[in-house]
């Protein structure tokens, strides 16, 4: 499974990622049902989504052990999940969301390996990085984020 890295300095806040995410997953356009979210207010904006953490707080906090890594993507077992929403509270990036229309927890599933947000982003701000390259690329992403690298 690939990972997603956001080069937030290029984001223009057009919300296209939210549109295609909800469209491809739910068949509607609704930013509230999107697995990726554009944050920011007056000034600059950038998208955040589940980062597929190594020691994931969502997985650790779940009282029903409903969250597990499957093929490189963290999934919620709807049968086990009791909708306590603890996972939404502990996630540091707000990567888990509650779909109040269908009463279930939703999160980025990397579109089965072909992330639509990355495909449709007009500014190519969302980069798909293949699994084996992740540790380095991600570290570099973090360094760029905090201005320690060029």
């Amino acid at each position, binding site marked *: 499974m690939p990972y997603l890295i956001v080069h937030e300095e290029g984001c223009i806040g*057009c919300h296209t990622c939210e549109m295609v995410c909800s469209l491809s997953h739910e068949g509607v356009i*609704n930013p509230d049902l999107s697995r990726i979210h554009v944050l920011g207010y*007056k*000034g*600059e904006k950038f998208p955040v989504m589940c980062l597929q953490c190594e020691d994931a707080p969502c997985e650790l906090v779940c009282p029903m052990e409903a969250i597990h890594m499957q093929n490189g993507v963290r999934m919620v077992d709807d049968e086990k999940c009791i909708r306590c929403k603890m996972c939404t509270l502990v996630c540091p990036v707000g990567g888990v969301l509650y779909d109040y229309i269908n009463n279930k927890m939703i999160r980025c599933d990397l579109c089965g390996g072909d992330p639509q947000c990355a495909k449709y982003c007009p500014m190519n701000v969302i980069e798909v990085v293949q699994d084996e390259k992740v540790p380095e690329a991600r570290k570099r992403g973090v360094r760029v984020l905090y201005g320690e690298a060029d």
Partner: protein
Amino acid sequence: MAMFGYTGRILFVDLSSKTVKTEPTGKYAGDFLGGRGIATRILHEDPDALIFMTGPLTSFVPSGSRMDVVAVSPVTGLIGGSSTGGEFPSALKFAGYDGVVVTGKAEKPVYLRIENEEVSIESADGIWGLSAFETIDVLTRGHPDLKVACIGRAGENGVKFAGISFSHRNLASRGGLGAVMGAKKLKAILVHGTRGASPYNPLELMSVFEEIQESITNSGEFLRFKNWHVDFVPVILQLRMPYFGDYEREWEKAEEAAMKAKKFFEEHTVGRASCFSCPLRCWGIVSYRGETLPINLCQGTFPAVTFTLKVEDPELAWRIYRKCQSEGLDMMATVAVVAYASRLGKVRLGSEEILDFIERIVKREGEGDVFAEGVKKASEHFGVPAVYVKGGMESWSSDVRPFVGSALISAVADSGGVNRALYGFPEFYYYVKKEQAEKMARMFVGDVEAAYPWSYSESKVRFAVLWENLHIIADSLGVCVIALLTTPLKLWAKAFKAVTGEGITEDEFMRTAERIRTLERLFNLRHGDGRDDLSPRLFKGEVKLDREKLEGMKRLYYSLRGWDENGVPTRETLEKLGLGDLA
């Protein structure tokens, strides 16, 4: 009946009786598409209404971020139409409404709150008297999901060229719609929508979304916008568009001022931004004196301050820009009024005095009260002729005298001015990209003459009619016209099919535009002084328009629209367009 693309409901709010109801969109959608078309149709039913209307493609396609705002303009007594983007239009749709129609008048200042099914009219006690920026800040504090449409103090005080602000950047600026909202004592509309919008065919939409996005991002427009906000001020000078002061053709410091403005934006730009769903990123985010604000140069706001007000210092120009934005003033009209006042010796151009002068207009203090009525009324008061276009509206920031196509549209337009009909019209960029302009003219009307700014040719008229139709289609679909023009109509038709489930051809698009255009004309003939004229000053002086030739163009324009020699739609045209019931 369930509708796709449209939410199927229009919200009607009557402020006098404090009642709220919804009406089905379906009864208008077939003939009038959406946005500008439906809004104009509703205005026929109730000329007191202030109408905010999205289109079927709003929030579905790239650049589908638009909404049309329509009411009777207090400046002209004719239709005041203005379009806006940003995030408010899609939020309205996500709340479950295709549009909002506000009628009546509140006793005390109120604001309207729309959260999906919950609609309430609230007291505006704490926010009446605030500027537009302050109002947005107060209403969205802690709730960044809320989208706001509001007026500043200019709208409250009935300044005739006040617009309606949508966030810190988008403004439905032209026609004095803010004064209409102020007269209704409606300070703001707050929207929060979480219902989303359903397309007819999601898979097909995914595919046509990609096609349209590719078409936009491969266009010259997308490339040009890369550094647009930095380059724009010098470019607009090369286009020979601006006028200086009170409609002068020359200003010896123009070049220098343009380069200073360019440098200012190079230094202070910290990022770029777009409206909802749009890849074009035409907003520059500027950080100046500890404040970060978005600015869009493509509508010519900053250049208008620089050139018309002869402001050499870009920092002062920025403060004037910010002043107008924060008060919710139409920049085009404001600069025209200030420039006219300078001719009367009321204010010195290029100086700090401009800021105080604008403040007096906003508050209607002293002579500010006269200037707040607009340039035509002010010229009647002072007895010194001014420049204005149809109905007495201030002209756009471009000088119409050297651009004959824009002069024609300025004289005959019924819903807003040149900016509602001729964005990116080839005659505007002729001096910079001659070949491209000629190519477009040849392609669309088979005659290079139509690309020449000075040409009064019949091909120019045909070109203008076509271009105006494209604008009407964009404004009615809820798509930004800049994006619409980059992409073949065929693709928009394909998107329309994927979103609504209804097939439409390019010809049907055009016919709908004709219908809406004639509908606008009918309204103005019925409700206002619809004479198609420009101020006499434009036909005098060294650079002037040829009245005889312009009259000839007008007659041709009328006949192409199926109107008689006086500009009145014939019965035959009305029948043909399915407007027989309005005859």
